[in-house]
């Protein structure tokens, strides 16, 4: 006799595919936005702005599908956690898309002016953010709660880098006020990248809830 859950499993597999598609798209946006900034490539920055709209559209699809699943399939326990978590993950991915678009906007703002200095820490932050996102997407697919700890570690590194970038830029601006228009957008970019990692952390925490049913948000990490 076939298993009833196969009906819901098929729908949940489709939901998972939609979320993964969003995740891969958003990873690309982080990379492109920082490349656009680094190489002062306006065309690439414009591409990010346009692609973010596709991410927004995918989030609507995830919401629609999740609501339908809840209403029509009556998911319980781990199925229910998967669907509600999926909606939250899509929300975080959509915000990451928006923040990548913000970075692309900063790249457009800075175009036509020489960079203050070659960018090192900001591309490093972007790389770490992408790593964090890869980890959580992988954990989502494998339903692996253990990844959260690695993401928390990356979050700490990114916070340190953001502080370093901000301090460094603040020093430059203090010494020469004429640099503000070129330095301040970079302060914002470091802030955007730090926020991107925060969203990846949210996703990691949601995955712990999805897999284990444990809440690790808002001080519930049980670490340190």
């Amino acid at each position: 006799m076939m298993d009833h859950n196969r009906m819901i499993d098929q729908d949940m597999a489709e939901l998972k595919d939609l979320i993964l598609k969003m995740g891969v798209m958003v990873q690309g946006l982080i990379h492109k936005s920082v490349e656009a900034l680094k190489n002062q490539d306006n065309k690439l920055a414009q591409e990010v702005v346009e692609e973010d709209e596709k991410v927004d559209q995918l989030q609507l699809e995830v919401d629609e599908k999740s609501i339908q699943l809840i209403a029509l399939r009556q998911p319980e326990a781990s199925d229910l956690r998967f669907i509600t978590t999926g909606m939250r993950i899509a929300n975080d991915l959509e915000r990451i898309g928006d923040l990548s678009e913000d970075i692309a906007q900063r790249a457009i703002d800075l175009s036509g002016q020489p960079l203050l200095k070659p960018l090192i820490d900001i591309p490093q932050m972007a790389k770490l953010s992408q790593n964090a996102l890869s980890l959580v997407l992988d954990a989502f697919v494998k339903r692996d709660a253990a990844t959260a700890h690695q993401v928390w570690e990356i979050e700490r590194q990114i916070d340190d880098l953001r502080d370093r970038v901000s301090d460094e830029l603040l020093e430059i601006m203090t010494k020469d006020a004429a640099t503000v228009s070129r330095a301040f957008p970079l302060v914002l970019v470091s802030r955007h990248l730090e926020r991107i990692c925060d969203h990846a952390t949210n996703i990691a925490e949601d995955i712990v809830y999805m897999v284990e049913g444990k809440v690790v948000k808002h001080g519930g990490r049980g670490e340190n």
Partner: protein
Amino acid sequence: MITLQEGLDKPLMPETSDNIIIAVNRLDFFYGKFQALIDVNLEVERNRITALIGPSGCGKSTFLRCLNRMNDLIDSSRAAGSIKIDGEEVLSPKIDLVNLRKKVGMVFQRPNPFPLSIFENIAFGLRVHRLAQREKLEEIVHRSLEAVLLWDTLKDRLQRNALTLTLEQQQRLCIARLVAVQPEVLLMDEPCSALDPVSTQRIEELMQMLKRDYTILIVTHNMQQAARVSDFTGFFLLGKLIEFDVTGKVFTAPSNKKTEEYITGRYG
């Protein structure tokens, strides 16, 4: 022969099509002076599961029984309007009722197999309709039991009395009995209400498979069941069809406030 997986590909939101098998226009129905159905208009798509929901006494079962003229058995009942199945007027006095009920079969709340052998239960309809030569009977019994996933379990016990089967098996047998005479439409009036949750689940899965070959209308008190199994849902209240739409829409954003109240348990 359909495969299990094929039967489980129900989309959450079915594409609507013009493939209409049943068209109901301005249907009124009376039991004596009491009007049980008021101006019902509805189109049913072929190879879809259509669920009819609503509180007790709202007319959903009456509506179902209009489709194969089962209500004719009740004295002083009267229908007005039009019901066309495959373009043929069901309410016409000229219609051949035996043929109509072969084409539009019905499954009831409580399984009602004949007190005969499993084999005879299925062969009975074929004989009534003179549908099969003697040598073909066995083949059709085999195919019909296979269609309801009973063949493997019962193939060595075909001569046993059908009343010895479990309720779920009896309900499956009743469906097999219909399938044997190759109907187009299966009417199911609370087909799972006498069954436990596991058997209910299995009958629901069977429905998903059967819709590849048949059009199914199901009356159910269980709203979750309507949400799970159907492609379209109609909500009846006090004899009127209040709302009819794709199930995904009815259960997430119904258009009518009364539907919303009923679905969310705020009715009455």
